[in-house]
């Protein structure tokens, strides 16, 4: 009985100290992509396994960065105008992702359906592949542009503050 109480007390102490040690102005999980920092540890293993960087690997990084600025608004001391611009940009980016992904999904289904016929037409398949290439390129570059634009809404001082904050927690 005594040992149970002691281990319970030890666990509670460890958990509590963990909570207090981690206490910071913003959730570290939410802000670890600020100012492009999550590009530092892009999962190259995934690319190695999958052969092509799926658009979602890039899109996820972009969204994490854009969400990070708004999550850290107080810490970065964002002005109301900056927050408004960031929200508008994120909304535009979400629309782009939904539109781009829908197009990619439809084109992918068409391509796979073509391949699922025993005698598919090479020229038809090639045409779909070039449409996919274009759609993929537009989506990926489009969202990256939004992330860069979002970064530029911040002042150089705010960007530095974000970097300095994220650096030690990486």
């Amino acid at each position: 009985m005594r040992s149970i109480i002691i281990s319970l007390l030890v666990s509670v102490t460890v958990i509590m100290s963990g909570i207090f040690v981690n206490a910071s102005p913003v959730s570290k999980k939410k802000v670890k992509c600020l100012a492009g920092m999550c590009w530092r540890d892009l999962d190259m293993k995934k690319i190695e396994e999958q052969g092509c960087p799926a658009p979602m690997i890039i899109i996820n990084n972009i969204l994490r960065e854009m969400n990070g600025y708004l999550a850290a608004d107080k810490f970065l001391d964002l002005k109301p105008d900056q927050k408004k611009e960031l929200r508008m940009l994120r909304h535009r980016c979400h629309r782009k992702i939904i539109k781009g992904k829908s197009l990619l999904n439809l084109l992918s289904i068409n391509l796979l359906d073509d391949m699922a016929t025993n005698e598919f037409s090479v020229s038809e398949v090639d045409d779909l592949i070039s449409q996919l290439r274009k759609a993929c390129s537009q989506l990926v570059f489009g969202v990256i542009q939004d992330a860069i634009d979002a970064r530029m809404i911040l002042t150089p001082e705010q960007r530095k503050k974000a970097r300095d904050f994220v650096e030690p927690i990486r």
Partner: protein
Amino acid sequence: MKRITIVTALSLLIAWSICAVKAMAQEEVNDVCFKAECWKEEGLTRLATTGCPTPTLFIKTALRELKSYVKAADDLGLNAMQKAKVQKIYDQANMLVIKAQGQLQSITKLLAQEMVKDVPNKNRIKGFVDEIEDVCWNTISALAKDIHEARSLIKK
């Protein structure tokens, strides 16, 4: 008490081994597919589970189909010349994918390096994105042609 623990651990180990062997056998059965059957419902099934069919899906399925012809060459009644051709197509496809992986890794690293900068250069980024998409979709296009060629060999 000690004996009970050992017996329980052993039983768990045996049960786990049986499950693992069964899973491997199942994987082996599912490993071979021919022509259209490799691709049927792949798109919608993947969409329902992952939300976005990636280029990987195409590459993996293409290699699986080509490998199936090599593995089942005797069962398909291929002659020596057809066997050699199918093997060559499969080897070339594999080489192509490996080469593309290397290229994609290095371009993606450059893209990531640019994105880490305080102010990334949009033109450079555009160039990297275009290069990535070119390598990726050119590989897919070449694989589609390989499959077309392999299927036409099987028909003969």
